[in-house]
């Protein structure tokens, strides 16, 4: 149907975009990787043509094991906890809102609009407003006093309390533990769906991981010469609250669209079989919402990994308890003149996001072709 001339035209039309993205995405990533392996950031970092030496992966190893980079390691910890809480709570809130709206007798458009409007704001606006709302001696904390209750005392953004502390020296142990948990969940889902082959493979992996954990090899690795505690900073709750407020409307919209695509006959059939309303949700709706949840996890997850503006506007750049790698990258690069280290942090962020995105992209585009 398509002539060669048309194909040529098509190729020419798309060529500029491909070239632009090739340079701006892949070319620049390559360049950042190159910079991250230099020592750009020594004394005269700001010369027009900086003289740099290649130092291999030294910047990376320094970030993970260097004494002074404990801020970066706490950043990673913060990012992990923020991502888990933000994604988890957004999913939960979104699902709740979607189910609620699905059940409404009237006012659906109004409520949907209200729950979704924060999505249209910028993180800078959200951050500015919530900074005011979370002032320790004002805002949400004095809200209870309006009805005669004592004022809240929680230091939303400034608390220095830390829980769930772990020793960074044992990071491999915890990574292995995390992998074990993930694979166990995956094994369970195989079991539920009755996929014997998948289950067997996952169980083998779990057994291997368990063996490694039990052997004590991982705890004997000395990553740092001394124990270094990192954990969950309670100050992150403030950021999580604002971020969930902003993004839960998004998951709501996704789930609502999902609920609407479930054919009523399916629910009717379940009800005829004597299922309660709750059971219909549990056994009919929820499983069908699985793929939507996967999408939402990926989209929200990558937003969480990249989070920058919101924290910058809410807590400022110099606030260790709520800092994340993206902020430290900005400070290292532009305030500390350490452009190579900043680039290394950028690459690490990219790798983390890729771990999430690439499998997702591959499966969704494969599914599309199939």
């Amino acid at each position: 149907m398509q002539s060669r001339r048309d194909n040529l035209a098509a190729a020419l039309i798309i060529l500029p975009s491909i070239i632009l993205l090739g340079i701006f995405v892949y070319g620049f990533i390559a360049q950042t990787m190159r910079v991250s392996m230099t020592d750009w950031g020594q004394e005269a970092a700001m010369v027009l043509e900086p003289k740099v030496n290649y130092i291999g992966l030294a910047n990376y190893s320094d970030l993970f094991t260097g004494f002074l980079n404990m801020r970066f390691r706490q950043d990673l910890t913060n990012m992990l906890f923020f991502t888990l809480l933000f994604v988890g709570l957004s999913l939960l809130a979104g699902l709740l809102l979607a189910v609620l709206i699905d059940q409404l007798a009237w006012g659906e458009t109004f409520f949907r609009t209200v729950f979704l409007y924060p999505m249209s704001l910028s993180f800078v606006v959200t951050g500015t407003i919530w900074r005011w709302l979370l002032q320790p001696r004002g805002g949400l904390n004095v809200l209870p006093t309006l009805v005669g209750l004592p004022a809240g005392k929680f230091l939303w953004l400034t608390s220095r309390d830390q829980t769930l502390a772990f020793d960074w020296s044992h990071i491999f142990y915890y990574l292995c533990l995390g992998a074990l948990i993930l694979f166990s969940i995956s094994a369970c889902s195989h079991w539920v769906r009755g996929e014997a082959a998948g289950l067997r493979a996952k169980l083998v992996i779990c057994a291997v991981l368990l063996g490694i954990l039990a052997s004590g090899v991982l705890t004997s690795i000395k990553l740092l010469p001394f124990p270094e505690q990192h954990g969950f900073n309670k100050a992150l709750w403030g950021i999580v609250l604002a971020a969930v407020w902003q993004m839960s409307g998004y998951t709501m919209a996704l789930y609502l669209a999902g609920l609407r695509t479930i054919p009523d006959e399916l629910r009717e059939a379940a009800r005829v079989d004597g299922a309660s309303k709750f059971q219909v949700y549990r056994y009919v709706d929820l499983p069908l919402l699985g793929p939507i949840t996967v999408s939402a996890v990926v989209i929200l997850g990558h937003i969480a990994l990249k989070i920058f503006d919101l924290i910058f506007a809410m807590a400022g750049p110099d606030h260790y308890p709520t800092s994340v790698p993206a902020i430290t990258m900005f400070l290292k690069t532009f305030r500390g003149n350490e452009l190579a280290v900043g680039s290394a942090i950028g690459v690490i962020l990219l790798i983390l996001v890729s771990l999430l995105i690439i499998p997702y992209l591959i499966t969704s585009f494969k599914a599309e072709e199939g």
Partner: protein
Amino acid sequence: MAKSRGAAKVLVQVLAALLAAAYLIPVYMTLVTSLKSPQEINLMTAWQPPSQVNWESYSTAFKQFAPYIKNSLILAVCATAISAAMGSLNGYVLSKYSLPGRNVIMPLIVFGMFIPYQSILVPLFQFMQRTKLYGGLPGLILVHVVYGLPITTLLFRSFYEEIPDELLGAASIDGADFFGVFRYVIMPLSGPPFLVVCIWQFTQIWNEFLFAVTLTRPSAQPITVALANLAGGQAVSWNLPMAGSVLAALPTVLIYVLLGRYFVRGLLAGALKG
């Protein structure tokens, strides 16, 4: 039975109303604070409405923001239009033409919308400098066009895939070439997709901060940077940052309230197809 179901219905309605009130708390607080005079702003009485409405914060904020709002408008309109136009053509090509390597191209393009921009920031501003595009709006427009291409291409492609191939076939039998098909078959069907894509892009670009702060001279800075300056520089009286937030948020919120349906469609389509 019927009675209890009625009660449940009321309960749902009340619960929704309560949640809606909670979601609107920040709006209340923002408006109330922005309308107070600086002397009246006090942490303990933050929740009370202003004793006297003070519009001055808005006129002050607007005076300060006017040039930046203009920058943001030029930036968002131009970048949205160009990236939408290019995305439309790309989507057409990628949905209807079987080019070599087509299966690889699409994931590679879409990957570009997920990358953390920290990982390209340093080479980006070096590139902008070398091409003399650094600092002004044209450069920022270029950047937003390029990093907007993945999402616009993806959205248009998924819209165009729903156009049946027979329609295109019929047109080419009538002698329409590549551009003819685009013009007479695709374009007339592109109204709603354009609206969806433009709303999405406009919102994204209007709200963007990292490129805005690092790639512009002060004279070309968009509104988000001006707001961060206002709120971060002098956090003495909160009325000004709050009024500024309202001004900065107004365009996107208006678009959202008026055209919410299309906004949601953009959201959903942006999540790929799970």
